């Protein structure tokens, strides 16, 4: 089998006559024949359409039926509306509440997947322009053979050069257009079909993310599957505020890398601070570990208002929509760098840097749109250097006295609290501050997600968020941590090493902490969860804002998670894969376990791989602060692979959970691949999408959700030990469902034998077999042999 690649075979034809035309000196450059050949035959579902994997989706959805949590009683999507959907009423278009909820989820998933795909497209186009379409893909030097597991699995192609990703993105864009069209009034009428399309959007999302991250790893020299990627500084306290400070916010790293290049080539790296928030920050530290991460998305207001940044550069995604005003308040020029977020600024892309810098320095303009990363690099640095000395860190946070004075204006109307997404007791704290006691405000700082809604709500125009941050000044100064920079993919050899222990259950599971910072109680809980699972020798992965949050906490010895635990994909490792788009390496790792360890055919073979992952690989995603539409599509990509996702309490706002019913025995039958019989496999994993009320509940659920029907007895015993132990410690007492999770005597952890056997007896438990589980009748070996 040979494979066409974009390469350098050039066919020159001196003269050609055909019926249609005559031409001379025709030169045809065609893709070359790769030396490397991909012998794997094409699987059944390359480039799947909207319906190709529908039957797989419906299998999962039969077990994990949506539990709808309408966020609004109405639909307002077209001018027939608004329509009242309470009490089984149908909309003017005939839609039911159930379908409308799933439709809304599909819309969110489309927005999320489009965001990653559009980001991948811009990034790829830029990198191809800069490095050529022939620039080779390289995610892990010689340690990685399966360079793009999702692309191979979904598209059935094996990308070699950057240019090969173009058709992958073409496919993603085509599917997303199809999917979005399904949300139009008068399209899909069935809720489960909407859900199947949500899964499709999720799968596309992971492909898009994979393209984005592989492209930037390959072209920008990010760590290549490096377990020992450097540590970088993290936190407000790490910034040297005496230097000119540049702040980058967003997800698209090229402007930031150009800023670093400009500084480096002029030997100015030590003359300025390059700081970042969100994923651009994460990716920038993959480019240079000298750059600094301030914090997750929720640090935007507090950092800007500290007055520290001299120039603010935004690219795309997760940027506060009021960033221009906030920047203007501290007199920091704002540079917008993406067509996706122009902020109403004048387009200066085609002006010479001298002029733009001069206009910034003179204050003639407060912001500019510059759609050329190289120019952004120059303008940002030169402006920061020129402006910093005269700006004097225009701080917006009140002093202690000002704070007290502001607090005295409070009438106790409680509107701030009623606006706070976390229902924080703000008005009490303000009242206390009015009497000189700011400890309440200081405490709020830890739980506050920095949304600023309290301020908008305050009729007294008290800058509530600012006084919270001001009250916690000492804390902010102490925010000084270390984070391992994003390492990218997982090496094939790591997969080989952990594949057995994972599938056999010696490693209790993979727990991935991903997504945004809409935490119910601040960043700290993520760090605590990471450490607990690493200590219990799970493989812990992190990415995005959660990767940042995971590093923002020190243990008793003053160490952060990344300093205590290794960065390798192994039991007890904490693996920061990178930014949001690096999430693809986590799903990719699960796929690689099926492919490398279990040798399942990968190419265009989605169902079989997902069936494998679902029944055998004990992976769980935790998006404790899931906020965005991207979080929705990322989760959906995990679901289709059979990987459960746990979210925080705000996650109920995603309109529905996907919950299994452990009490319905009939729901948990699987085929035994050996015999073809339908046998009871047990309620594992119990849920596909689950919102926990508290961190404790989440941790116990995570431990439970790593169980899989094919766990060996040894493996199940280890998983049960963790589950029961965490339950006892965090919730109290024995869990009530042990009897559903023990299949054979040998599953029972020795240390808990007595307690468990008591329960089993009470529940009239009997042994049942451990199947070779599959949901796919075609995977039954007997029938295959027949």
């Amino acid at each position, binding site marked *: 089998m040979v494979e066409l690649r974009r390469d350098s075979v050039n066919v020159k034809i001196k003269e050609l006559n055909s019926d249609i035309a005559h031409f001379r000196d025709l030169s045809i450059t065609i893709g070359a024949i790769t030396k490397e050949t991909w012998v794997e035959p094409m699987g059944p579902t390359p480039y799947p359409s909207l319906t190709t994997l529908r039957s797989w989706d419906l299998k999962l959805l039969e077990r994990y039926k949506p*539990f*709808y949590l309408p966020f609004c*009683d109405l639909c307002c999507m077209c001018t027939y509306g608004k329509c009242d*959907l*309470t009490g089984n009423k149908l909309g003017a278009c005939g839609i039911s*509440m159930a379908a409308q909820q799933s439709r809304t989820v599909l819309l969110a998933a489309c927005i999320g997947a489009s965001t990653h795909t559009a980001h991948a497209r811009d990034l790829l186009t830029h990198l191809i322009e800069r490095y050529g379409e022939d620039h080779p893909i390289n995610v892990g030097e010689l340690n990685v053979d399966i360079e793009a597991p999702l692309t191979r699995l979904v598209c059935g192609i094996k990308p070699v050069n950057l240019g090969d990703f173009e058709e992958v993105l073409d496919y993603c864009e085509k599917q997303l257009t199809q999917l979005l069209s399904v949300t139009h009034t008068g399209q899909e009428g069935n809720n489960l079909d909407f859900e199947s399309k949500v899964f499709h959007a999720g799968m596309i999302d992971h492909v898009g993310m994979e393209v984005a991250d592989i492209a930037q790893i390959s072209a920008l020299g990010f760590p290549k599957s490096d377990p020992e990627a450097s540590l970088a500084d993290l936190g407000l306290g790490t910034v040297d505020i005496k230097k000119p400070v540049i702040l980058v916010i967003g997800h698209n790293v090229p402007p930031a890398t150009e800023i670093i290049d400009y500084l480096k080539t002029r030997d100015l790296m030590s003359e300025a601070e390059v700081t970042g928030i969100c994923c651009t920050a994460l990716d920038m530290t993959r480019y240079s570990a000298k750059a600094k991460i301030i914090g997750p998305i929720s640090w935007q207001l507090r950092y800007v208002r500290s007055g520290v940044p001299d120039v603010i550069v935004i690219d795309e995604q997760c940027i506060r929509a009021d960033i221009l005003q906030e920047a203007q308040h501290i007199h920091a020029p704002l540079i917008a760098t993406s067509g996706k977020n122009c902020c109403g600024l004048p387009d200066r892309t085609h002006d010479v840097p001298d002029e733009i810098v001069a206009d910034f320095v003179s204050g003639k303009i407060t912001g500019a749109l510059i759609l050329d990363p190289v120019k952004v690099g120059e303008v940002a640095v030169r402006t920061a250097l020129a402006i910093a000395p005269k700006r004097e860190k225009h701080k917006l946070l009140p002093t202690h006295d000002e704070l007290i004075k502001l607090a005295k204006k409070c009438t106790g109307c409680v509107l701030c609290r009623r606006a706070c997404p976390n229902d924080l007791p703000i008005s009490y704290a303000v009242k206390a501050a009015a009497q000189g006691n700011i400890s309440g405000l200081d405490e709020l700082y830890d739980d506050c997600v920095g949304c600023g809604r309290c301020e908008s709500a305050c009729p007294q125009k008290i800058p509530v968020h600012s006084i919270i941050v001001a009250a916690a000044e000492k804390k902010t100064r102490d925010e000084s941590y270390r984070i391992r920079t994003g390492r990218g993919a997982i090496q094939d050899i790591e997969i080989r090493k952990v594949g057995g222990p994972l599938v056999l259950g010696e490693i209790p599971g993979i727990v991935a902490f991903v997504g945004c910072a809409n935490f119910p109680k601040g960043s700290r809980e993520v760090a605590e969860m990471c450490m607990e699972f690493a200590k219990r020798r799970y493989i812990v992965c992190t990415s995005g804002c959660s990767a940042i949050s995971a590093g923002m906490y020190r243990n008793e010895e003053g160490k952060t998670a990344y300093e205590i635990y290794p960065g390798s994909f192994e039991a007890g490792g904490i693996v920061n894969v990178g930014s949001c788009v690096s999430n693809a390496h986590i799903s990719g790792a699960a796929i690689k376990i099926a492919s490398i360890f279990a040798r399942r055919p990968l190419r265009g073979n989605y169902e079989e791989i997902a069936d494998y992952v679902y029944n055998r690989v004990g992976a769980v995603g935790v998006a404790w602060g899931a906020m965005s539409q991207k979080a929705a599509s990322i989760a959906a990509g995990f679901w289709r692979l059979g990987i459960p996702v746990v979210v925080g309490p705000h996650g*109920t706002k995603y309109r529905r959970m996907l919950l299994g019913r452990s009490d319905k025995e009939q729901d948990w039958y699987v085929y035994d691949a050996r015999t073809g019989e339908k046998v009871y496999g047990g309620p594992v994993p119990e849920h596909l999408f689950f919102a926990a009320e508290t961190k404790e509940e989440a941790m116990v659920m995570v431990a439970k959700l790593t169980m899989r029907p094919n766990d060996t007895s040894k493996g199940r015993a280890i998983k049960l030990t963790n589950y029961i132990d965490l339950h006892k410690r965090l919730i*109290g007492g024995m869990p009530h469902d042990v009897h559903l999770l023990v299949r054979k005597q040998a599953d029972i952890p020795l240390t808990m034998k007595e307690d468990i056997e008591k329960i089993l007896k009470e529940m009239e438990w009997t042994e049942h077999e451990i199947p070779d589980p599959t949901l796919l009748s075609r995977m039954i070996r007997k029938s295959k042999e027949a």
Partner: protein
Amino acid sequence: MPLAESWQTAEIPGPKKASLIIKPDIADAIIRRAKRPIMIVGYGAVEYEVEGIKLIECLIELANKGKIPVVVTASTAREFLNRGFSPAALMPAVDIGNRLTDPAWKGLDGKESYDLAIFVGLPYSMEWTILSGLKHFAPYLKTMTLDCVYQPNASWSFPNSTIKDWAANLRGIVENLGD
């Protein structure tokens, strides 16, 4: 503080909204009228104190007097166990919510569907969304909340109240039930 508006200003419900429990008698009557009530208690139960008495103790009294099975969510179980009270189930809030939308579900004891679900102590917006799920997808079920804030998606809710009024109300309910 407006009485019958969502506690979180923006959590505006649609046309179908909770009736107010203005007096404890109302709640009392609703509970008495219910054939199969169930109570779902979230982690807030541990955090709230009502005039020196922890909310959880008040709830235990209520459950005992009213013979109401209690589902304890989140990390609240220990506090019940410590007080010698055995919850009927330890179960996440979304799980019990989900089961309650199943008209075929015969309850924790496998006997009969519940007709009244009493919520207390979940995080406001999570209780809001779960009650919304039940409002829309469990038409045969009535829901009530005992929190001190208005939950529009319940069938009945207290108004937004001061802790003091709320305490008096709760005590009123418990005492009435004792009759």
